[in-house]
Every structure is written in structure tokens, then in C-alpha cells.
């Protein structure tokens, strides 16, 4: 028998995409971490910031074009509203499984002590104002600060 591996006690998760898949992978893993008694930090950057912008956070979508896993031909993705419909279907099914909308999910994570941050470089690049962000965003931070926060834990990129 080898020694039991050290349990993970802290995760810092980077979300750089604004599609349902990346955002929900981030949220489920973060929430799972706090539910297991771990520390969790989330760092939203690039398009991932759409998940913490007030006007877009509950309207994130899945790609129907250029998504090889989507069981429909990409060409059909040109039909207006198809991405919206596919996203609605996914969100409806997730809600049945008790997977909440983005804002409620982030609140759940915070209730468990999880912390939510946004990348300064992306905020500057997309010219986002602090007031456009969800109120639960703790801070807009540099990558250096992110590494400082992540110290002693695992970093996960979705």
C-alpha cells in the first residue's frame, strides 16, 4: 500500500470562454469544491466575463456552429435562433437536475465561501465598467494577484 495522497484543499478555476460548457464546468467544479469543504476562487477572463456581466450572465449560449460535439450539421447553425433554442434546451434540462442559472449558482458558491474575481487585462481590453459586473464580483485583479490567491492550491483551466 502506498501512502494515501494528500487531499485537495483549494482550487482556483480560470474560465476564459463564455459558452455554456466552459461556464458551467467552472460553476459546477467551484460549487463542488466548496461543498467538499475546499477553498475555491474563480477567475473570469476574456469571453468568460460574459458570465459575470449583469446583462449577459443568464443569457450564455452554446455554439451550434463549429462545435463538433453538437449532433446537428454545422450548416443548420445558420438558421436564426438555433443557438438560442439549443441553449434553452440545455438550460431547461439542467434546471430539472437542480443546476441553477448562472446568477443563482454564483450566489450558492459564495454562500459556501467561494470567491469570484475578474481579470484586469480583459476588463481593460473589452472596456468593461465595474458597474456592468455582477455585484458579487469581489475584485478586478491582475494575473499576478491571481497567482498569489491561488498559492498552495490547484489551478484548473476550463
Amino acid at each position, binding site marked *: 500500500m502506498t501512502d494515501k495522497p494528500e487531499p485537495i484543499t483549494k482550487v482556483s478555476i480560470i474560465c476564459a470562454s463564455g459558452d455554456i460548457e466552459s461556464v458551467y464546468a467552472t460553476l*459546477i467544479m467551484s*460549487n*463542488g469544491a*466548496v*461543498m*467538499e*469543504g475546499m477553498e475555491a476562487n474563480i477567475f473570469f477572463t476574456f469571453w468568460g466575463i460574459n458570465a459575470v456581466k449583469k446583462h449577459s450572465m443568464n443569457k450564455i449560449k452554446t455554439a451550434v456552429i463549429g462545435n463538433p460535439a453538437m449532433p446537428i450539421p454545422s450548416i443548420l447553425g445558420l438558421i436564426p435562433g438555433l443557438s438560442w433554442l439549443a441553449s434553452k434546451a440545455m438550460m431547461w434540462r439542467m434546471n430539472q*437536475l*437542480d*443546476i*441553477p442559472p448562472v446568477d*443563482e449558482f454564483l*450566489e*450558492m458558491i459564495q*454562500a*459556501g*465561501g467561494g470567491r469570484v474575481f475578474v481579470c484586469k487585462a480583459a476588463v481593460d481590453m473589452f472596456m468593461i465598467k465595474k458597474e456592468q459586473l455582477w455585484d458579487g464580483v469581489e475584485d478586478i485583479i491582475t494575473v499576478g494577484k491571481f497567482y498569489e490567491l491561488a498559492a498552495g492550491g490547484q489551478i484548473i483551466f476550463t
Partner: protein
Amino acid sequence: MVQKTIAGKNVEVNDEGYMTTPSEWNREIGTALAGELGITMTDKHWEVVDYLRNSFNEGVALSLRKVGNSGIVDIKGLYALFPGGPLKKSALIAGIPKPASCV
């Protein structure tokens, strides 16, 4: 599976400490299991435990969100009652299987 004496009663638990026969559970066992986790039971703890047991008996798939929406306590309150494991610790104390839920 291992046999364990809890609150003077012999019960079977799995390797994570969850009781394998929920019908063997009683409040004394719940109090003792909570004590092992460093939790002192209050009325609010019991309300959550009763909710979990009733839901389990009705075949409901439990999740943190469901307990948070139960009207007993919000999610922040659940974390305060069962630090470091709002769903897994409360389920262990309630003598039901560990909920197989990612949320």
C-alpha cells in the same frame, strides 16, 4: 461495510461512515454521529435532518439547492450548520446514503 456501535446500538456503516440501513437510525444515533463531526445539534439541525430523511424516504434526489429551497434554511445557513460539508455531513448525520449529486 463495518459494524459500528453508535449511541449503544450496533449498526452497519460503509467505508465513508454512512449508515447502510437508514431504518436503524434514531435521534440518539444522529446526535452521536454529529458529535463525531464536531457538530452540536440544535432545533435547526434537526429540521434539516428531518427534511433529508423525509425526502430520502420519498425517493427525492437530494441536492444542496433543494435543501436551500426547502424553506428551512438558506444555503449560507446550511454551510453554517454543517461546516465543510452542507450536504454530505447532514446526510451522514441523518443516517441516509451520501447524496450522489454534483450540486
